[in-house]
């Protein structure tokens, strides 16, 4: 009950965080697509795997890449302000993935809110460092970037399990759509990141592999929460069908101290698992 009260208090403290504390994820309009089909990928921002569409901001795109039979930089194809981040015609039945990374945006929070947010996201290293440097009462000057990827399963699993090279990335180590317990690796600049808090959300899909409308569906709590091992992996029970989002936040001292003291990277990986697949 105590932890519940703590979480509720935290939620009230964090209520003003409208911009950054939300997850930001990519999802196709439908996770079912075959050769010749057009796949449209959009971005969403919200909490509890519920939110709103987020138009593409061309100025903030660091990477926007589609992977089908090959990797294609699609930054120049995205129109500023458009709902669609990617519109692909699948060349084969191998599936596709789309990766997106934003540049850093800045935010400054009062000390209490910043501390609460660090606790909520399990960012223990910054918390310890603020205690060590006696700056726990100082406002949190932070810059943050998004690193998202979505995967449409197909016959070529490599399109989902090979890293896209985002600064922070959550990558399945094997096909999570057929395993009962799937392993995911968190990579920071290509290297395994141990001790990072990973959360996973799951919700059913509508007919035709379409996610339910993000704005009207219910907000959910994560179905999994755990820290990565030294090799950067976590094992998540993924036997439920539906849409999955596996996410991780990493915070480190800012590269640009004149702008911010801390920089955070928000990574996630979305995919869908057929409801009737047989786990093994």
């Amino acid at each position: 009950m105590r932890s519940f009260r703590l979480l509720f208090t935290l939620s009230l403290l964090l209520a003003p965080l409208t911009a950054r504390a939300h997850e930001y994820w990519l999802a196709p309009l439908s996770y079912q697509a075959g050769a010749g089909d057009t796949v449209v990928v959009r971005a969403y921002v919200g909490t509890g795997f519920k939110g709103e569409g987020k138009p593409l901001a061309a100025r903030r795109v660091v990477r926007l890449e589609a992977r089908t039979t090959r990797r294609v930089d699609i930054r120049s194809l995205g129109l500023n302000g458009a709902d669609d981040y990617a519109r692909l015609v699948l060349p084969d039945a191998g599936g596709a993935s789309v990766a997106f990374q934003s540049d850093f945006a800045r935010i400054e929070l009062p000390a209490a809110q910043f501390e609460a947010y660090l606790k909520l996201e399990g960012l223990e290293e910054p918390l310890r460092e603020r205690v060590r440097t006696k700056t726990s009462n100082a406002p949190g000057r932070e810059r943050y970037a998004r690193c998202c990827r979505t995967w449409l399963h197909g016959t070529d699993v490599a399109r989902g399990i090979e890293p896209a090279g985002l600064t922070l990335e959550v990558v399945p180590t094997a096909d999570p759509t057929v395993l009962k317990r799937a392993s995911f690796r968190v990579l920071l600049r290509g290297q395994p990141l141990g001790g990072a808090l990973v959360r996973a959300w799951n919700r059913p899909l509508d007919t035709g592999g379409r996610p339910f409308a993000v704005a009207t569906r219910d907000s959910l709590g994560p179905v999994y929460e755990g820290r990565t091992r030294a090799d950067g992996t976590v094992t998540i029970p993924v036997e439920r069908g539906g849409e999955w989002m596996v996410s991780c936040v990493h915070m480190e001292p800012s590269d640009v101290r004149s702008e911010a003291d801390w920089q955070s990277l928000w990574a996630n990986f979305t995919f869908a698992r057929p409801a009737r697949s047989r786990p093994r």
Partner: protein
Amino acid sequence: MTRRVLRGFALGLMSATIFVASQAHAHSQPYSWIDLVATPDSLLGEVTAHVVDVAHELGAVAPESLASASGLAVHAAAVREVFARQLDLRAEDVRLTGTIGAIAYLPEKNALRAQVAFARPHSSSLEVHGPLFVWEDTHETYVNLRASGRLEVQDLLDHTHTRATWMTGEKRDLGRVVLRFVREGIHHIFIGPDHILFILGLLLLGGSLRQLLRIVTAFTIAHSLTLVVATLGWLQPPARVIEPMIAMSIIVVGIENLLAKQRHRDWRARLAFGFGLVHGFGFASVLRELALPADALGGALVSFNVGVELGQMAIVVIAAPTLALLRRWRPAWSPGILQGGSLVVIAAGAFWLVERLLAH
């Protein structure tokens, strides 16, 4: 397992609380769009804004009442005014006036889209200022500007980035640059009570015309030096250092006034020079925010400084003779004016010092 479920439930509830609480004072789609096409003599395009934002600007109008053709017809004139007021297009920083045409409701975005048309003057730059709405700081405006079939500007305006600029390739009118930056310099002096008080503090002690000229010249040379150095990017101390130092300079000038008579030495010219260097960095931060035209950097810099000087001279020309007349008219008031005035200066400086230290 039960604990995990409870924890999941709690996190879900927390997420929902955060989301609901955040929605209580901000709507869920804080976006707007400005899409323009530039022809040689016009700017044509569309502006799209969410009904919540338009309704907020209208005042006592429910957003739902704009979400139909009939509702929109009732408020058409007021909605046009909102678009005209919020859409801020400028040519070399001179605001353009245009016409707001047909307005339509877009159900898929729950937004209103207005056709806009502006006459386009010859200018070296066109700027879109934004975001379109500022009543919530999460608002973002997507700006696209096309010319000659090419997408020239794709930008996103928010509370940290408020201007999208298209350099048209036409030659800049230097006269207009000079006028604008002289005006900005004067404006900055008069809206900055700290600069005014610093100058007044230097004048409180009075003195000969020669003494006053020395003080003013020292201040001018010093702030001009650092203004140039900072504007050219050679040295840019952070505002959290400069702003408290400006407040400190006011306190020091006040204290100097109180001590000068006992010391029989006038250090005001030295103080004016030393702290003038600090004030120059402050002026430079203002100038940076004005987005200096790269093709007329020198002109803008000199003009801004001239504006600052004019503003400063206006204060000296009014304040110095007034204080001198007051002393001559009522010699007995002279110590009171000096001490009282200096204490006010010190108090104001101390207030700003604390305020700025706490802010940074």
